[in-house]
Structures are given as structure tokens and as C-alpha cells.
């Protein structure tokens, strides 16, 4: 079977040459949708300003989660209407999606902290890595006595450790 003369419909960027610079960006949201942290390592394309971008990202995750909760083909339980508000950990969630240009890895903690890491589409399963990042967040941010929960993260130590860690995995 040949499609379109064998040419690829949606070409993806070249395979990562070496690990170290395949992380594109990272978001941390709290459960109210406030963007606590945004880090960017490699983002040539920016279509929106920062605030709109964060809103759009949170909206995408929120809707994708209600989509997966409604779609869940393994549970016969009544799932309610599409878009019904759900507590963190309730209903079927998702852990990543892939397009031809990037892969988005997603984790939600029981307290509703959402960690999003965007990487090259060919990176593998990063679920464990996101848990490690969550641990970093707990160690460097939550345990920081000067940090007020719910406010944007401004901890230099967290940023440097994070940069280092992401360089190591993606």
C-alpha cells in the first residue's frame, strides 16, 4: 500500500542527535490553573503571548482530561456528562500525547499540581522522570519557607536543578 507517492504527509523533525537539548519547555500549574512555573529551553515558534499561551495550555489539558474520562472504554460505570468537573486522580487521565513535531508529557499530583514537559516527539516514556521532577518541586519549592503556596515559583536552586535534570533525560 502506497500513500501519496510514498511521501510523508506530516514530516517530523530530524531525530535527536544527542540527548541534552531535546526538552522544549515545561509548565507547572496548580489546581486553579495558575501557572506557577514556565521554563523554556528551545522554542523557535511562539504564536501567542505568554499569558494566553498558559491559558491555552491549561485549557487543552483540562479538556483532554474530560475527554479521556468520558471515553474510558474499560469502565462500565456511569461517567456523567462530558466535561463534568473531576477531582485530581478521579476518572481516566492521560500521560502523554504526541504530534509530528513534539511530545507532551503530563502528570498530575494528588493535590492537583500539573507538571507538563514538552520534548522531541521521539523521546520515550517519561512518567518516572516527571515523578522525579515532582520530587524536586517538593524538595526545593514546597520545603522552601519563603515560598507562599499558589504563587509563581521563584527559586533559583529549583531552576538550576531542573535545567540540569531535564538536560539529563531529554
Amino acid at each position: 500500500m502506497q500513500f501519496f507517492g510514498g511521501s510523508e504527509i506530516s514530516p517530523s523533525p530530524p531525530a535527536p542527535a544527542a540527548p541534552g537539548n531535546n526538552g522544549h519547555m515545561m509548565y507547572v500549574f496548580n489546581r486553579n490553573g495558575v501557572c506557577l512555573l514556565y521554563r523554556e529551553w528551545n522554542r523557535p515558534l511562539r504564536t501567542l503571548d505568554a499569558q494566553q499561551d498558559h491559558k491555552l495550555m491549561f485549557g487543552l489539558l483540562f479538556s483532554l482530561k474530560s475527554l479521556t474520562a468520558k471515553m474510558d472504554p474499560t469502565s462500565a460505570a456511569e461517567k456523567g456528562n462530558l466535561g463534568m468537573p473531576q477531582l485530581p486522580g478521579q476518572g481516566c487521565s492521560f500521560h502523554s500525547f504526541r504530534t509530528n513535531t513534539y511530545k507532551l508529557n503530563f502528570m498530575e499530583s494528588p493535590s492537583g499540581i500539573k507538571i507538563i514537559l514538552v520534548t522531541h516527539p521521539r523521546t520515550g516514556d517519561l512518567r518516572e522522570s516527571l515523578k522525579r521532577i515532582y520530587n524536586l518541586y517538593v524538595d526545593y519549592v514546597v520545603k522552601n519557607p519563603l515560598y507562599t503556596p499558589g504563587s509563581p515559583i521563584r527559586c533559583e536552586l529549583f531552576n538550576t536543578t531542573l535545567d540540569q535534570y531535564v538536560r539529563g533525560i531529554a
Partner: protein
Amino acid sequence: MAAIYSLYIINKSGGLIYYKDYGSAGRMDTNDSLRVASLWHSMHAISQQLSPVLGCFGIELLQADTFDLHCFQSLTGTKFFVVCEPGAQHMENLLKFVYELYTDYVLKNPFYEMEMPIRCELFDMNLTQAVQKDRVAFLGR
């Protein structure tokens, strides 16, 4: 057979034109499938906006806790997506095969109106065959 839970085809404006369930628990009713389909259409579009690099064509694979969703968008904007067990292989090939069936049995049907729900017996038959005989593995030629 158990590998695939359901199959959707949505037209270029997000309307559901075909939905087939292959035995998922807690089957969705018509309204829900329509809503899910149009929600997927918008999420697909938003994912293109959020791309960090140029040339993004939307979500190809969504990995949820209990299922995988593979999506294929044709050049004209019709989207085909299949909900299957996590880690199911060769779904891209299946989707392309479904696309082939769609062009052969739906688009070439003179009674079919573009962008309208698909009601073509031959398409149904061939699709059922393609999925049920579990030809998925063989299509990975």
C-alpha cells in the same frame, strides 16, 4: 479483536460522520459520541497552536491510562481516529487502510453527499472485515 474499542470519522468541520463501537464497556450514546468527536476536533487544532516548532499537524497519538487514541488526518481535513488497547501496534496502517476504504466506498459512491454521515453498506462490510479479521498485524507490510 479486543485490541480495538471504537472507530470515529469526523469531517473537516468537526462533525461526526461515522462511529463504530467494537465492544467498549459503558457504550456512549449518540449525543456523547458527537460531543466527544467535536471536542477532539478542537483539541487537535489547539495542539497545533501550542507547538514549539513550525509545521505541526496535530495530535497523532494520545496515551491515556486505559487506552491509546491514534489519529490520522487526511490532506483534506477528514480525521480518522481509533481507540485501542494501550500499546496496540500497527494502528497507523489500520487508519490508512480505513482511509483507503473511505475513498473507495464512500467518496466514489455517487449517492454520498460530502461531509454528511456515512451510510454505505459496502463500506460497513469492508470495515468490519478489516477490523474483525484482525488484519491489523498483516497490514504492517
